[in-house]
């Protein structure tokens, strides 16, 4: 079977300074995958490199056995929340509708079918009552859900999400996780940049541990270990301690 995502020897550099070095991992089957690493470890850059938003210095990326540029209709994206201007004069429903643009093609305007579908996606993230709000009037969590609904509207097989749970309320985090599980159960793959070590084992089947270089990747149970975390967060004692504590909390005493 062709792997869902194959990242091969990817290096990304800004002005000769590498921010990602020789990163290599494969997702063979549909799954929820977390990209984990400290600040500045290149998590977001990895996502952008895979999506073709930043140029690769070397390496290659394939999705479903093809270059990403050839399978764009099968790829969905939730960017970081601060990547757009929330004062922009659009309403929530408009933003979700943008998810359908990719399949519409040139000059085709979204019609009744697209609106209906966008409304369903909005329903799934629980924002139907806010469809007619200007996006700046939403809370951070609601903005994040709007982006998630837009990604759902893309009807993709492979999703990339950049810190969707950063700075959101507990209700939003639950909604997002529920949607992630639904996607996985429907045979889709979701790759999530994630920062909260405490929830990694609950959320993800596979993890990619990153610190400029790839530290480890594989099934969460065997990869998300104290040793690997130490190698990922090495030297940063405070974070390391938190990580260790998180693992102890997760696994409970006596393990």
């Amino acid at each position, binding site marked *: 079977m062709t792997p869902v995502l194959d990242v091969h020897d990817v290096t990304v550099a800004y002005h000769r300074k590498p921010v990602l070095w020789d990163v290599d991992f494969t997702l063979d089957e549909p799954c929820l995958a977390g990209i984990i690493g400290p600040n500045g470890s290149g998590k977001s850059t990895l996502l952008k490199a895979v999506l073709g938003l930043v140029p690769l210095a070397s390496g290659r990326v394939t999705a479903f056995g093809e270059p990403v540029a050839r399978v764009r209709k099968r790829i969905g994206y939730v960017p970081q929340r601060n990547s757009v201007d929330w004062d922009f*004069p659009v309403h929530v429903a408009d933003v979700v509708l943008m998810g359908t*643009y990719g399949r519409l093609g040139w000059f085709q305007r979204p019609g009744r079918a697209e609106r209906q579908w966008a409304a369903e996606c909005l329903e799934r993230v629980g924002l139907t009552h806010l469809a007619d709000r200007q996006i700046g009037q939403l809370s951070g969590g609601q903005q994040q859900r709007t982006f998630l609904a837009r990604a759902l509207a893309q009807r993709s097989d492979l999703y990339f999400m950049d810190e969707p749970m950063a700075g959101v309320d507990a209700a939003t985090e639950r909604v997002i996780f529920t949607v992630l599980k639904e996607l996985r159960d429907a045979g889709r793959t979701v790759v999530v940049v994630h920062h909260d070590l405490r929830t990694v084992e609950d959320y993800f089947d596979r993890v990619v541990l990153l610190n400029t270089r790839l530290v480890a990747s594989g099934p969460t149970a065997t990869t998300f270990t104290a040793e690997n975390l130490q190698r990922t967060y090495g030297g940063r004692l405070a974070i390391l301690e938190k990580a260790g504590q998180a693992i102890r909390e997760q696994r409970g005493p006596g393990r």
Partner: protein
Amino acid sequence: MIAYNTLVVLAGVGLLGAAAGLVGTFATLRRRALVGDALAHAALPGLCVAFLLIGERWLPGLLLGALVSGLVGVGVIAFLRRFTRIKEDAAIGIVLSVFFGLGIVLVTWIQKTSTTGSKAGLDSYILGKTAGIVLADVQLIGLVAAAILALVLLFYKEAKLLVFDPDFARVQGWPVGWLDFLLMGLLAVVVVIGLPAVGVVLMAALLILPGSTARFWSDRFGVILTLATLFGAATGLVGASLSAATDTLPAGPIIVLVGTALFVASALFAPRRGVVARWLDDRRFRRELREGAVP
């Protein structure tokens, strides 16, 4: 009864205002409003060089020269930003003033030396003059403006996505670089055809004011674009009429003053989003708080 000539001039300037308002709103939302300003100022030397080459005031030729040097100016900005440590605002400032200075030198020189120069009235391109334009010129301006309006309508969905979230557009597979290029191209053309009426100094106002005014009246993308188009047309029409009526005042400043009046009135008195409405709403809210009406 208005003379046929005046009607045509008004139609041309109205279409110009509409096109500038529409394209300018896209450019402002894409944070390229100042690029329009640099384009306009950088167009002046090209206009003069074209006049020297052609030897007479033939508008299509002059505007082509203006377009070329305007685009060269934008190219220099892009070059400075990409290959030096100079930031975009500084790069725009450098290009704008250097090209404009060169243009002023050329205009002055042409007016002094060339025999046909004084008749060419190249100085009218600095502040704009609708009275000096002949019928054929206005037809050209109107046609180009109408073509621009049609193009923006055609690419409406793509342009909306581009200005709101270019990275998302790229992930969906839209050629963001080319769409940006198209937007910049339309901006350049609008600026250049606006030069005879509005002039290089104040052209940017016709790009920025209508969209900024419209923002006070709505937060819907389509409504704002429609309003900006209408405000732009109205600004052009009223300004050009006033300028034509007085005959001594340059059109550019008058048009900009009309646009500013519309902007200030909207900023102050627009329902809900205007300064006064917000102030009243704030006061009412505080009173309700005091009286315990708000839980």
